């Protein structure tokens, strides 16, 4: 899915892991994203860099993160994979 979206979209892709009221703490895949000041890189997937906001930094420094893909027709996240009826999710605490 990440490779497919990379082929569909012309801009630079970024994954940011963030939380908030309505979509839970989850990965968000964006094109040409403006990273919040102080965002912290924690790795990459299919060449796409993965960031967390400053407040999450300590939480991801020394643990393994699993990003999975699930069927989801009704997500309101602006994450690019949602257009294909799927959603990136985290598989850990």
């Amino acid at each position: 899915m990440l490779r497919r979206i990379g082929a569909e979209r012309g801009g630079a892709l970024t994954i940011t892991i963030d939380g908030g009221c309505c979509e839970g703490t989850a990965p968000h895949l964006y094109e040409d994203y403006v990273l919040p000041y102080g965002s912290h890189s924690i790795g990459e997937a299919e060449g796409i860099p993965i960031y967390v906001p400053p407040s999450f930094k300590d939480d991801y420094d020394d643990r393994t993160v699993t990003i999975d893909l699930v069927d989801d027709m009704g997500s309101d996240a602006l994450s690019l994979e949602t257009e294909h009826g799927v959603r990136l999710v985290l598989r850990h605490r």
Partner: protein
Amino acid sequence: MKEFGLFINGQWEAAKGGKTTQSINPATEEPWATVAVADREDARKAVAAAKKAHDAGVWRGTPKEERAEVLRKIAAGIGERAEELAAAEALDSGATIRKSTLADVPSTADTFLKFADALMADEEETVFEEAAPVPSRNIIRKEPIGVCVGIVPWNFPMLMASWKIAPALAAGNTVVIKPASNTPVTALLMGEICSQAGVPDGVVNVISGPGGSIGEELASHPDVGKVAFTGSTEVGRRIMQLASGTVKKVTLELGGKSPNIILDDADLDTAALAALFGTFFHQGQICESGTRVLVQKDQYDTFVEKMIAGSSKIQLGDTMDMMTSMGPLVSKTQYDTVENYVGVGKDEGAECVLGGSRPEGMEKGYYYSPTIFAGVDNKMRIAQEEIFGPVVSVIPYDDEADAVGIANDSMYGLGGAVWSQNEERALGVARQIETGTVWINDYHLLNARFPFGGYKQSGVGRELGAWGLHEYQEVKHIHVGENVPADQKIYFGMLFN
């Protein structure tokens, strides 16, 4: 099974791609309605309908007295369908029928009435005479922006839609609403109610569909003049980025971690119930919930005991029963988020003194127990991050200055409260809290006459009242100069010798 299409240009229609989805009742995990799912083409169609109606002047050309009258008719239409709307809201969102009947429906109708008032109180044109550098008459004129998009969340679906529709209509705009995919029904019904009240075709359009496609389309479409979004800070950030491409006006109502400050001279019995109300009403799924309760350290243990005791009066159950005071969370995603954060709180060393799991005996539905964490330090993740569920952190403070410091130590600034039997003292503290709303000796009460919005990362702009109306207007200055020859335009001398 009830069926709902999209509401575009005054009509119900199927989505272009023919896709539908089933809306799930969070109390039973069973589908209760089938709803059309819009795609980008439907979004473009809705924008085109709104733009056509705006350009034709069918709504902005209507005198403001008539627009105000239509808003009042919409309120009446909501009243006439109150039972239907309250039931749909409960089934779609997991709200208790008590909440949807006593809060959602009346507040939604009231929003339209208050904006009718705000419109009538707003001067469309004001005139000022100026003498220098040459005599002029100056007209300050309010105009609508054009096509306004409202993207609204699932916690108060109908009310949040009205907070976008009412001011947009009052100001003479046309509007496209995208409700949350979890809870589209009442917003769709509102499209119909507006039409029945006399709103011309194309002026109010409601399309339900996923955020990633139609949300992105609406936030970046060049014919959209303004985007109003209520939801998470994460998505709000992205909406702002997308809207920047065409320099749209943006208002955002985002997350919160609102401080509920109990001063040492508060009536502790009342304040304890307020602390519960501020954080457990609608299962804690409210942006301005008082999720950090700040208590003076010498009163701390007593206060926590009072909160635990008061929670026994909360009745979880079937949302369609008026005796139920607390329902389920809106979805499995929300349930997982809350469960995850409860785990985080325990890992961080906070003490879970109430709840912290699914209620016993309630295996069906996304129910979560009212949960209280004691011994919370404001630096903990459960004190800094928005959980959006029935989880409250009780934080001890030393003195007033410490309480204010803790209250303001947050990236959010949406709501908050101060409890005290000394009103002047409470006001002194309220003035120091960096939030858009501060309640003194109350919680959750909002009035569509008064501004609501966030400091810091809780949002941009204000909704409701005259402030909310102005966010849906452009302002034009017409300088009427005198029709006199060049030799009387003395400022021409800047260029011509």
